[in-house]
């Protein structure tokens, strides 16, 4: 798997999402809970805006000086016995990891949840190198057994219900108990414990690397990243190059923002910072440690108007408030990065050609801007993407083009507009729902397929104004 998921065209993916009732209900309820949790934490602090401001300043400074801090980080990891590999591309990163695997003659690799390894398609590369890969995050493990891509960056199996999970466990692992989440989780614990103990190599992502000391930090609730970093003798961390803080003091602020914004917790059960190899006399932790720092298209965003997209700390707060994500779910985006941040990042990392529809998967309501803990201007960046797609790339989505054409023809002829504006109030009535037209006829169809068109007022502005002048009733 790489960043792009599935081959179905955008429209089909959206349709599939919209028709999946369980998924839509699950997403709606999850969004509600995530949102409430985040809001509660923000309210409790009382000065959340100050926290966001600080988060934003830290990210800005770090990205402005990313070369300086990456140098410091790599020096410090190296000082503590770790090997550091800078990978320009996904291929370079995968090849480096493959070589480690081959040198170790590793048969089993156990992983903790990591978006960047999904992005570069590391699992396939590991399998090519002859290793079995076990995903150890509960959600990821479920998806791995079922060969299904993630639909949310924090709770990847959000689109599955417990009956489906029970069925998967039964078919793939001979599970014969109930579909109670506790029993399912206990089964996963027992199965995965064996994998942790027998794995030759552990692979993690990285939430934040601390430049000043070379510490790589993992934020989890299940404890799987602790397992992966405590048990196998060889350990590899793969980090997107921007997942970096200058010192431990900034680690505090960004971790606090991440756990609150992501899951409404003051801290998750485990925040674990590992530095290099285990020290003399220590009996757990890796004796061989590798850090792979991945660019894979990120550097092209530096120095552009989209630089702030690299401030993202992967909390999914924007996803959890997005009304479009709520309706279509994660898979519809066709990228491992869904929701507003996915719609901004995917075209930048994976190219406009593959992801040109995503900036349109937004109602431009701006809710994402309000919740982002590091104040990324997602809303503005989505609009800018659309401009680029239409004006520079000449690849506006077909539906958009058609709708615009029909609308333009209709609205630009004064006679047609005058006539139909009056007629519209009556004619469009059957398609109006509340104040919006949701399934318009003729030239409006292209438009309303992807958005609602405001229903004409019962009275035209002209006749309303006339009446008002006469002292008539104003609405």
């Amino acid at each position, binding site marked *: 798997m790489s960043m792009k998921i599935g081959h179905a065209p955008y429209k089909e993916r959206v349709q599939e999402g919209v028709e999946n009732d369980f998924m839509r209900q*699950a997403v709606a309820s999850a969004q509600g809970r995530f949102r409430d949790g985040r809001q509660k934490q923000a309210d409790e602090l009382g*000065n959340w805006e100050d*926290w966001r*401001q*600080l988060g934003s*300043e830290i990210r800005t*400074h770090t990205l*402005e*000086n990313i*070369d300086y*801090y990456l*140098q410091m980080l*790599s020096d410090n990891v190296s000082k*503590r016995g770790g*090997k*550091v590999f*800078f990978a*320009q591309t996904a291929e370079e990163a995968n090849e480096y990891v493959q070589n480690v695997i081959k040198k170790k003659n590793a048969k089993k690799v156990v992983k903790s949840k990591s978006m960047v390894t999904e992005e570069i398609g590391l699992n396939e590369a590991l399998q090519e190198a002859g290793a079995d890969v076990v995903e150890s*995050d*509960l959600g990821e493990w*479920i998806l791995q057994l079922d060969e299904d891509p993630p639909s949310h960056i924090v709770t990847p*199996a959000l689109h599955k219900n417990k009956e489906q999970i029970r069925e998967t466990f039964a078919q793939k692992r001979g599970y014969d108990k109930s579909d109670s*989440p506790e029993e399912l989780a206990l089964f*996963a*614990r027992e199965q995965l414990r064996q994998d942790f*103990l027998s794995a030759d190599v552990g692979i993690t992502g990285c939430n934040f690397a601390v430049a*000043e*000391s070379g*510490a790589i930090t993992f934020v989890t*609730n*299940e*404890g*799987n990243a*602790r397992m992966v*970093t*405590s048990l196998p003798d060889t350990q590899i961390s793969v980090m997107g190059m921007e997942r970096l803080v*200058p*010192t*431990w003091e*900034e680690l*505090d602020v960004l971790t*606090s923002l991440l756990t609150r914004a992501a899951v409404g917790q*003051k*801290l*998750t*059960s*485990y*925040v*674990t*910072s590992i530095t*290099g*190899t285990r*020290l003399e006399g*220590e*009996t*757990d*932790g890796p004796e061989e440690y590798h850090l792979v*720092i991945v*660019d894979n298209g990120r550097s092209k965003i530096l*120095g552009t108007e989209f630089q702030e997209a690299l401030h993202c700390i992967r909390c999914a707060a924007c996803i959890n408030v997005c009304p479009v994500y709520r309706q279509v779910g994660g898979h519809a985006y066709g990228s491992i990065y869904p929701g507003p941040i996915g719609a901004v990042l995917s075209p930048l990392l994976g190219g406009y050609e593959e992801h040109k529809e995503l900036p349109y998967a937004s109602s431009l309501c701006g809710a994402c801007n309000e919740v982002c803990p590091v104040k990324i201007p997602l809303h503005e960046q989505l609009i800018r993407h659309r401009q680029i797609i239409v004006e520079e790339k000449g690849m506006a989505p077909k539906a958009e083009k058609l709708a615009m054409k029909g609308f333009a023809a209709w609205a630009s002829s004064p006679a047609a507009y005058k006539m139909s504006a009056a007629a519209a109030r009556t004619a469009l009535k059957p398609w109006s729902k509340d104040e919006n037209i949701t399934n318009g006829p003729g030239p409006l169809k292209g438009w309303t397929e992807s958005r609602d068109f405001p229903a004409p007022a019962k009275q035209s502005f002209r006749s309303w104004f006339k009446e008002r002048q006469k002292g008539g009733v104003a609405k």
Partner: protein
Amino acid sequence: MTIQNRDSFLDNLAANLGRNRRTEGVKRPKWSVQPQYEVFTGLSQDELVEKLEEHCKVIHTEFKRTDRDGLHKVLKETIDGFEGKSVVSASDERLQQYGLNDFYKSLGEKGTEIHLWDESKGEENKVFAERADVGITFSDITLAESGTVTLFNNKYNGRSISLLPKTYIAIIPKSTIVPRMTQATKLIHERNLEGQDVSSCVSFVTGPSNSADIEMNLIVGVHGPIKATYIVVDDEIN
């Protein structure tokens, strides 16, 4: 070679930022706001204990409080409550300070299997921890706001003790309690400036492990311990 491809990689970043590579002289700016220092400012040590106790309810962790004289009794009750037949414990100098060597010895004599983490025993440490019912460590720094024990893992306090057993007990000297993560990371930052190496693993542990990956239901106890108890000990330092 322990660092590969660095120069070409970082030169490219600098080029994209439209400037020369920065290898020195970068200073963190003075941030315009520092809200992290406002949390629980001015609270007494006892008030911080109350905050910690309050938050234990949220993180599914049992909270107990005692003094040095009562520690053995409370520890025994907690181990019994977890039906602990086998116990693995960290082995730093605090065992001696709190008289736990004798305590574990007497527990052992009564039939509980006891393993004190011992660097000379290598793998055996992990093997015991993996099948142990209870893991016990002291907290190095305790964060009142989030209910977190901070562990500087080392050869006396292996990572596995607080991770592999079914249940976990943290002994929290009252003097280790601070408002929040800010104070812990500040200390690590300052030590680092002084040239002291940070532990190979710093574990911030907040209650038992959990997951919400199945239909957003909270499941307590996934890969790490299924239950956790904190025992705050009044250690007469205020």
